[in-house]
């Protein structure tokens, strides 16, 4: 492998990894505060992307407005899910909560297939034009947008979690929900806020990454599996871990796909088994989480 190819693969891997990071950060944000593993993250975004598609192609709404609406739609979905589904079963086992999100994901997939059929559609990118050449590295414009979006999202999440009162409340809930309630933290509204932010990220992520795939009811499936792999690698329960884990998975995946194409899609299983055997707390985990 020449150094040019290596650089190209690595940088492109970073842009792929940014996709997993975007999805993974939303999942981890919800997971660490509300203790729900949201398997509907991908399909929430998928369904919103369908709505966005028709807004852009049929109703000719400007792209930037659609982007904002998609984020808002995600937030609304998150609010509704938390208020009308999660809240009433919170006291039950985490299995029930996982099952609810699986049901939600099936519902979105069924609705998308039923309303819009399963034919793959091409989704226009946010920015189009020739790929940009930086030294030996060639990058598509949309890929750069995704990478920047992941970085900006991470920055915003960091500021939210560490510089706002609500963020501190969310972090304290993830440490000890009972103590947080005793200290007067309004946990229901923090839960709703976190679900809104997390699901808003689902809308944003899906809309930004769909031009790399094609719009069909299953397009977020594999992305979500890899986002979960990234979360395990990053140490489940840290937004930073999910972001870095996503980037690493993206880079390794690209290099592996070039050198050993045969294990391209199964390597994440290998990654998970190795991580669980060697480094169960992940790269940035703080040991076993107590609340699970």
């Amino acid at each position, binding site marked *: 492998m020449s150094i040019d190819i290596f650089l190209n693969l690595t940088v492109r891997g970073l842009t792929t990894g940014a996709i997993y990071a975007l999805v993974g950060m939303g999942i981890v944000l919800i997971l660490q505060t509300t203790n729900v*593993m949201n398997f509907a993250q991908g399909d929430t975004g998928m369904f919103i992307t369908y709505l966005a598609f028709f807004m852009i192609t049929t109703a000719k709404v400007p792209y930037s407005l659609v982007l904002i609406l998609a984020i808002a739609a995600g937030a609304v979905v998150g609010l509704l899910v938390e208020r009308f589904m999660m809240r009433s079963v919170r006291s039950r086992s985490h299995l029930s909560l996982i*099952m609810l999100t*699986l049901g939600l994901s099936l519902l979105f997939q*069924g609705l998308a297939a039923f309303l819009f059929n399963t034919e793959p559609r091409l989704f226009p990118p946010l920015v189009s034009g020739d790929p940009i050449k930086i030294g030996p590295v060639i990058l598509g414009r949309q890929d750069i947008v995704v990478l920047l979006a992941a970085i900006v999202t991470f920055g915003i999440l960091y500021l939210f979690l560490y510089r706002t009162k609500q963020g501190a409340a969310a972090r304290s809930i993830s440490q000890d929900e009972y103590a947080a309630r005793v200290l007067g933290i309004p946990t229901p509204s923090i839960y709703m806020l976190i679900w809104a932010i997390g699901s808003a990220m689902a809308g944003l992520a899906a809309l930004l990454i769909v031009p790399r795939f094609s719009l069909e009811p299953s397009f977020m*499936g594999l992305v979500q599996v890899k986002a*979960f792999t990234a979360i395990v690698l990053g140490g489940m329960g840290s937004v930073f871990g999910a972001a870095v884990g996503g980037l690493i998975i993206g880079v390794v995946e690209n290099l592996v796909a070039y050198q050993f194409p045969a294990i391209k899609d199964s390597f994440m299983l290998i990654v998970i*088994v190795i991580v669980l*055997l060697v480094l169960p707390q992940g790269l940035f985990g703080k040991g076993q989480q107590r609340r699970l």
Partner: protein
Amino acid sequence: MTSSGTRRLAVNGAIAALVLVLPLVFRTKSSIIGYLNIAMLYAIATQGLNLLMGFGGLVSLGHAAFMAIGGYTAAVLVMTYHVNMFLAVVAGVAGAGLFGLVIGFPSLRLSGFYLAVATMALGSSIADIIKRLAITGGDYGLINIPVLRLGGWELTSEISKYYFFVAILVVVFLVVRNFLNSRSGRAVRAVRDSEMTASAMGVNVAAYKLITFIFAACIAGLSGALYAFTISYLHPMNFGLSFSISLLSMSIIGGLGTIIGPILGALFWVMLPVVIGGKMEFLSTVIFGLSIIGSVMFLPKGLSELVTRIQTRLRL
């Protein structure tokens, strides 16, 4: 015997009679019996999942992978190595159990979330692994798998398969029920309800989780092996993540932690699209999604809770 006991016996007898007579009613419509056969195969796999989730409190998002391993192992042994069919089924079950050990061992010592992710990774990569192997027929799938043979009796007609599957289903259900009522079964349920209490009582939590997981994988392997010799065709894409989610949905809708739930769930899952009709197949996905949400929120024991409520209403 009390009068309600007699009545219950009568109802159970009526159900058993219905099960046995049903294929004769649909004698001319073998497609319906075919659907029932598929539902029974799914019910077997789902019973394993029910054992795992409903009684063990563990989740598997890649259970179809164990079916695939069982099916492919059995089919390849018979087709390529001309192994005796019965031994091939046993090998398929063992192969699935072995994979259960490989996945379960690293993830079961951690929290349930890790098992969810590890099984999901297995479920989404199994199709790819099978596709890359030459012996499994790769991307073309395995075709012309021989039909199940018992002694000198070939199970070619749907009706003969039906009775065979009813027998297998009953055996699997009895084995699972007896396991749950045994010392190990009580330990498994104790682990589900509180790991801390269970371990304080001297239950080896990690070992029982692993046993449950391997057991569930073996049952899925059995279902997969029977599937291979029934459908006579295996394709890796049929065992992907979405089928794993389907199995999971069947067990949730049927009712987790109930012994008849898997049958109800599998029947609902297989029959609803048939009833709705081919053109509206995605409407059934919508209904499945809603059913899962409804089950978790309002009917934690799914369809079997519905059955129990009807039973109490009719005082059966």
